[in-house]
């Protein structure tokens, strides 16, 4: 059954138990995207922490965030992971109400000026713009046509940060480079419309784009899959995935997938959980890691100088020597 991972050990709330609960954003735990990454992080932590156990609840109505969190706090879980920036407020409220439970809010920036310090809540955010920037640099260097494409999900903060970072990175290589940027039009299926993503990717290919960044859940995956079908995929036409290393999650895109602009949700989540267990946990805003996935089969195809340039950008971004210049709003 979906919700239970390990065999139930001690009852949650007893001293021996270490229970981790996860509430997804409206979406499923197997969404090949942030919900899944977070859940994988939880599972990794469970594996690393003996005697721990985990469960998830999938949100079907965004009004039920609080109720879903309560499932876990009622059962005296030690850690509750909430996924997605839409749950920011529900998580903060729950954290204040349950000071004994530790919370990890993924993609949830805490505006300390407004809500104050919440010691038992870590708001884990990621510098998506940096990952996007590095991907943009790589794309611009790979492009022969000097036209890049972006097939994006809904126009919300994390996606926009990826997209703007990508464009900034590309422009930093060649200011005359053209970046076709298209967000999914409709609201409710913006992240779950692979057919639209594929058609849009094809349109951008037809308009000479030769590297396409697919960033928007299943919609973006549809784009990657379509690019992989194009003639010249992997030779002169490339695609770049998002969020996780999509080499594994979108196998149909392997033919064109150079890399993925990742935010390391799993790692970040697992690290936080381990910190809680090890009592090194600190609330407040925590910045996770973002970067590029490995090249996999393209390791030999990407020219060495390009690889070097990209790794330098990644390093500079990390050290702060380079700023992406991305601002939202």
């Amino acid at each position, binding site marked *: *059954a979906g*919700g239970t991972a390990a065999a139930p050990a001690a009852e949650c709330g007893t001293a021996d138990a270490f229970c981790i609960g996860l509430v997804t954003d409206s979406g499923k735990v197997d969404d090949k995207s942030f919900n899944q990454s977070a859940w994988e992080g939880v599972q990794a932590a469970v594996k690393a922490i003996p005697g721990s156990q985990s469960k998830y609840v999938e949100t079907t109505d965004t009004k039920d965030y609080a109720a*879903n969190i309560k*499932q876990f706090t009622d059962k005296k879980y030690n850690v509750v992971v909430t996924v997605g920036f839409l749950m920011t407020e529900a998580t903060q409220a729950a954290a204040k109400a349950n000071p004994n439970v530790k919370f990890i809010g993924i993609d949830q920036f805490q505006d300390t000026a407004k809500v104050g310090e919440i010691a038992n809540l870590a708001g884990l955010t990621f510098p998506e713009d940096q990952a996007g920037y590095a991907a943009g640099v790589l794309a611009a260097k790979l492009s022969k046509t000097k036209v890049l494409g972006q097939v994006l999900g809904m126009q919300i903060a994390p996606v926009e940060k990826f997209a703007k970072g990508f464009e900034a990175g590309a422009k930093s290589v060649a200011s005359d480079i053209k970046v076709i940027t298209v967000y999914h039009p409709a609201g409710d299926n913006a992240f779950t419309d692979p057919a639209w993503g594929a058609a849009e990717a094809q349109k951008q290919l037809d308009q000479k784009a030769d590297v396409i960044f697919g960033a928007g859940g299943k919609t973006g995956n549809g784009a990657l899959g379509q690019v992989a079908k194009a003639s010249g995929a992997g030779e002169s036409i490339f695609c770049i995935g998002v969020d996780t290393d999509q080499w594994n999650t979108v196998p149909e895109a392997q033919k064109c997938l150079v890399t993925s602009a990742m935010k390391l949700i799993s790692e970040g989540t697992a690290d936080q959980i381990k910190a809680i267990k090890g009592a090194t946990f600190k609330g407040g805003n925590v910045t996770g890691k973002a970067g590029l996935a490995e090249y996999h089969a393209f390791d030999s195809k990407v020219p060495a100088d390009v690889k070097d340039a990209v790794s330098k950008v990644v390093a500079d971004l990390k050290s702060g020597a380079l700023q992406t210049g991305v601002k939202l709003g």
Partner: protein
Amino acid sequence: MSQQRPTSTLARFQSFLVPVLALVVAFTIGGILISLQGVNPFLAYKSLFSSAWFTSDGLLRTLQKTTPLILTGLAVAIPLKIGLFNIGAQGQLILGGLMTAWIGYSLNLPGILLIPLSILGGIFFGALWAWVAGILKAKRNVHEVISTIMLNSIAAGLVDFFISGPMKEPDQSIPRTPQIHSGAMLPNLGFIPIGFPVAIALAIAVWWMLKRTVLGFQFITVGENSHAARYAGIDIAKTIMLGMVLAGGLAGLGGAIETMGVTHRYESGFNAGLGFDGITIALLARGNPLGTIPAAILVATLRAGAASLQFDTGIQPEVVDMLLAITLLLVSIPILSGLLGKKSSEPPAVTPVSKEEVPA
């Protein structure tokens, strides 16, 4: 005349028995599906119902979910009586909800003014949206199924525009409006959200209106035979528009209550599917306004209990969609009533949508 047709008691009994039996069968089938997943169905149902009904905050949530569903159910059921199929409750509800939020956050008035004003705003915009479909039908003979589908998409786009543009909460990356002033918030009376008795009262009022009043007779005549209605001096265009406006107003009220009583703001993703659930509810209720109450309670219970079900048993929350689908199938399929006797408890006729041009 007082002497009743001999069939009518049977019919009444049937119209009650069929849904109950449908429910029993649906839950049995659902139980089999659940046990196929390796879970004890009794445990699953116990978890579902006890979390939805037997905890005070669960009950509150169930009733909160019931409230807009009754209203959107009515928003579908009323037009059904005049032969119109209102797919547009969704659009009407979200516009109403948005406008209520707008009034609620932008005007800083005492509650005694702000509450009625916000509610009226929601009702007004819901009604306005339905009226568009009504006038297109009445004056231009545009099929309401098509126009309401279009209007739903347009409403979704408009709402999206407003909450990420003019009505967006400043310094906030989530597309949503600011929170409404506390004066506009509807309190809960213990585990009863204040909107719930309102919705119940409205369902009874709509039933009474259709059953007993002159206006109801006018509505139903148009639905039964629009030619005869016209002959009888009923202004069909006006009736269509009035019916749609009433429906839209109820859906808009659903949005308003949702905003004022539950969400306290408008945010992208809120209210998803409430209007579409209204269709299910109206059909489960077989078009009967009173029937929307148990139908809405059922749907709300399933949705409210789904999370506990997953927490306790690992069964996916989608199982409730399966249960609903089977129930609806059994309620509407003539087989069950056929087994119970004759065909007298007929489902609501939706199709006699007047194909004649309604003269301007």
